[in-house]
């Protein structure tokens, strides 16, 4: 049985050289060139990590769970790398770059003991690989978090409810209506109906690129929910091509629909008993005559 290498001793004896070699490695990889991270900052990170890796290499078995502090540090580091816009390989190279200097150091300490060096190298490689995988994983995770947050923001931004008049709301929909968005649209609309005690809601689908059977079903659901709350819905802004497609597909929207938002508003005003008066001409005309 070969003598196990004393990693803690190796690291403490060659600390500065390892750090220097590691930084050189990172520089060669181009991590610093982008200017996203400063030299001193990187060196600080290296020192902190080496201090944590030492005990990990010296004690932990290859398959034992990663030490809490080291894990936390790597997760935090990958997160900040992801936010700063580093690539995944640059992030994992931070860990992998430690390999060569470490192996160099152990070669110096155990000359002519090939079996010790080989054993220690294999051990260290396995551990560092796991750490590198951990960085990739957390890098990916924080990227995904960003994407999810953006999706949520887009969903909120794209479903505004506008008050057009006392008791008249408009929902200008833009983009594809999937079931998730329908849910958000429905909730927003119903909530606004309560807040403004609206009688009529106009759903304007000028910005909806395609209407298939599924989208139509979602629209109908929204209309049905509004009706249950005691508000009428008018659908407006169905484009000519879409109207044709819908008829060809056999999609039927059994709701009041108007060609444009203006027409829908005119109808809504008429429904709540308002008239638009042309102040230039003396006579007051009901809205329907002004169209």
């Amino acid at each position, binding site marked *: 049985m070969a003598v196990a290498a004393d990693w803690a001793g190796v690291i403490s004896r060659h600390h500065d050289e390892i750090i220097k070699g590691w930084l050189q490695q990172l520089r060669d990889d181009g991590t610093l060139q982008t200017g996203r991270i400063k030299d001193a900052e990187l060196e600080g990170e290296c020192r902190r990590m080496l201090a944590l890796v030492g005990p990990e290499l010296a004690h932990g078995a290859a398959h034992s769970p990663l030490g809490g502090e080291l894990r936390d540090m790597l997760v935090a580091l990958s997160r900040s790398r992801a936010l700063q816009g580093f690539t995944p390989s640059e992030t994992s190279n931070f860990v992998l770059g430690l390999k060569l200097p470490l192996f160099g150091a152990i070669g110096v300490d155990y000359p002519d003991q090939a079996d010790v060096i080989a054993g220690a190298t294999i051990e260290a490689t396995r551990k560092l690989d796991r750490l590198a995988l951990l960085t990739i994983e957390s890098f990916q995770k924080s990227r995904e978090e960003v994407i999810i947050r953006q999706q949520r923001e887009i969903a909120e931004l794209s479903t505004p409810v506008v008050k057009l008049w006392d008791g008249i709301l408009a929902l200008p929909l833009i983009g594809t209506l999937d079931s998730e968005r329908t*849910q958000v649209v*429905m*909730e927003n609309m*119903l*909530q606004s*109906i*309560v807040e403004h*005690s*609206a*009688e009529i809601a106009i759903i304007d689908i000028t910005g909806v690129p395609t209407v298939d059977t599924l989208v139509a079903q979602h629209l109908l*659901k929204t209309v*049905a*929910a*509004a*009706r*249950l*709350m*005691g*508000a009428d819905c008018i659908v407006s802004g169905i484009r000519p091509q879409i109207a044709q497609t819908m008829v060809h597909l056999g999609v039927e929207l059994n709701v009041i629909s108007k060609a444009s938002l203006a027409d829908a508003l005119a109808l809504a005003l008429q*429904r*709540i*008993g308002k008239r638009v008066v042309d102040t230039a001409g003396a006579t007051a005309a009901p809205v329907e005559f002004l169209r």
Partner: protein
Amino acid sequence: MDRIPILKMGDALLITIQVDMHDRLALALEEDLTAKIAATKAKGVLIDISSLEIVDSFIGRMLDNIAAVSRMLDADTVVVGMRPAVAITLVELGLSLTGVKTALNVERGMLMIQNRLRGLGDFSGRRS
């Protein structure tokens, strides 16, 4: 057993549901209401469900039934004050209560019933 009170206001009956509806309570309400419509010759029924937070398919169907029964006895049913969450639930359950008239609040519901009583015809709640 608890019963939901049915108040008479002119030619309309007013029902305010302020407790969670369980199935037996709903059935009792349907029976009571039918008897009351027959007894008072009411022309409109207003059901306020603004305090109702939980609905299931049974309650949804019950509302539909009440409306259908009332219509047979020549009274129109208006359901008022449905909460957004309840509306979404009913739609997701596939119950859009097509036979039931709806209004946002009691005031508007009453207006709808009065319009009908005054013979304004189309029962749409439009101001005239």
